[in-house]
């Protein structure tokens, strides 16, 4: 038996005994960012595929949520800062090596775009709405540029979705986060929550079934990525094996496999398959489970990652 006793005189708040620098704000924001990315991605995709009429809810109804989702996410992000009055320093520089800088700038791009998209489709919510004066000119300009806006939205939503994962994966210091799988995993999970939102808000039955099919595919990719993530950890260095152990017998095992994989991925997938087989399933159940699963995934990865470490 080898006895190792480590005594450290360090007890810095929010750093010891293990890192707790990021609380609910960051995973909540990452969920909101991913959700907005998913919603805007599908809206842009169906415009660019010329299927706006067929998927009118995805293009004209669901995107009205995106500005709210983004603004609430941004408020959470601001709450997370310890030096809030200095937040504008983010916009004095572009730092390509910092995922957070990427995130700040892509939000600067996609948030106004989500407002513009909502403004030019406002009549699908309020049919009588008329923009007045200069706003009318601005609106007609944006309506003419709709395809260009859709292209920008398509790319920026992918960057937004992927960056929510890269934010974590860029930290070599936290072995659980330091896997490039997190980028695609969070992107796919964000798209899946966006599809779930469309399932909830689509009135058209065929559109809803298409989104069920898309969501089913995305859930499959997510499961594949999760398996690969663990294979990568277990084939890596001791610190990453220890990080994986947090989920394979460690304190996060039950919450991760039950709440994220079981209730957030497998159960909604089964319900969606049953729906495609013409069983009557209330749509908000699988869609709601996907949304809760996406939120739990980010919370668990955020908290567990801060417990994984190199030293002591």
């Amino acid at each position, binding site marked *: 038996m080898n006895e190792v006793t480590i005594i450290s005189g360090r007890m810095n708040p929010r750093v010891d005994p293990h890192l707790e620098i990021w609380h609910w704000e960051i995973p909540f924001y990452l969920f909101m960012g991913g959700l907005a990315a998913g919603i805007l991605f599908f809206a842009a995709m169906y415009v660019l595929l010329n299927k706006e009429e067929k998927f009118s809810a995805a293009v004209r109804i669901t995107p009205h949520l995106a500005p709210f989702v983004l603004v609430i996410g941004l408020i959470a992000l601001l709450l997370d800062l310890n030096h809030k009055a200095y937040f504008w320093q983010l916009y004095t520089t572009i730092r390509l090596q910092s995922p957070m800088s990427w995130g700040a700038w892509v939000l600067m791009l996609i948030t106004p775009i989500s407002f513009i998209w909502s403004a030019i489709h406002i009549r699908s919510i309020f049919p009588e709405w008329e923009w007045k004066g200069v706003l009318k000119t601005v609106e007609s300009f944006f309506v003419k540029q709709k395809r260009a806006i859709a292209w920008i939205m398509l790319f920026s939503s992918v960057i937004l979705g992927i960056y929510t994962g890269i934010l974590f994966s860029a930290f070599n210091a936290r072995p659980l986060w330091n896997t490039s799988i997190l980028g695609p995993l969070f992107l796919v999970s964000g798209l899946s929550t966006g599809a779930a939102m469309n399932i909830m808000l689509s009135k058209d039955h065929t559109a809803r079934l298409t989104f069920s099919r898309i969501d089913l595919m995305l859930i499959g990719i997510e499961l594949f990525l999760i398996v690969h993530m663990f294979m990568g950890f277990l084939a890596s260095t001791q610190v990453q094996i220890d990080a994986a152990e947090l989920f394979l017998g460690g304190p996060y095992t039950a919450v991760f496999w039950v709440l994220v994989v079981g209730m957030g991925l497998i159960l909604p997938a089964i319900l969606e398959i049953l729906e495609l087989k013409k069983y009557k399933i209330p749509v908000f159940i699988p869609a709601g489970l996907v949304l809760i699963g996406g939120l739990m995934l980010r919370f668990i990865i955020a908290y567990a990652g801060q417990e994984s470490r190199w*030293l002591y």
Partner: protein
Amino acid sequence: MRYAMAIDTKKCVGCSDCVVACQTENFVPIGYCRDWVVEIVDGTYPQLEMEIRSERCCHCENAPCVRCCPTGASHISDGGTVLVKPNKCIGCGACIASCPYDARYPHPDGHVDKCTFCLHRVKQGLDPACVAACPTKCMYFGDLDNPRSDISMALKKRKWKTLIPEAGTNPQLYYLI
């Protein structure tokens, strides 16, 4: 110029004078520390080994905290020291999460704080406060680019290690073993 520090683990007695000296010199808020002492006992009784280390920011050459900083508040300064500009720091915590040594902490004033190698003292020709206060003289500070500096000589004469070199940060805090 390449500032670095070497600490003799055979001489260190773990008195924590370096910790108090730093807290006093740098007005470190109560309950926080920029340097700390680690005591590791390893082995099976009666074959036990003990190592005492005074730890702090390693002022890495490949500093992940500088790379991930979204505003440029964390930067590489004179002699390769890694510093934080408090009025550029938004307190996002990315650098704290990025440090494999957990050498940074959120200052109650909002910005992130850490060891500076006492650059303000070094510029006056003094040693960092921790080095100056050490009663066993187990700490060496100096310029690695100068082959005659105390630290260059110490690293030449003695066996040394750095902490978690496999994290790839190229730390500039050496432990003589």
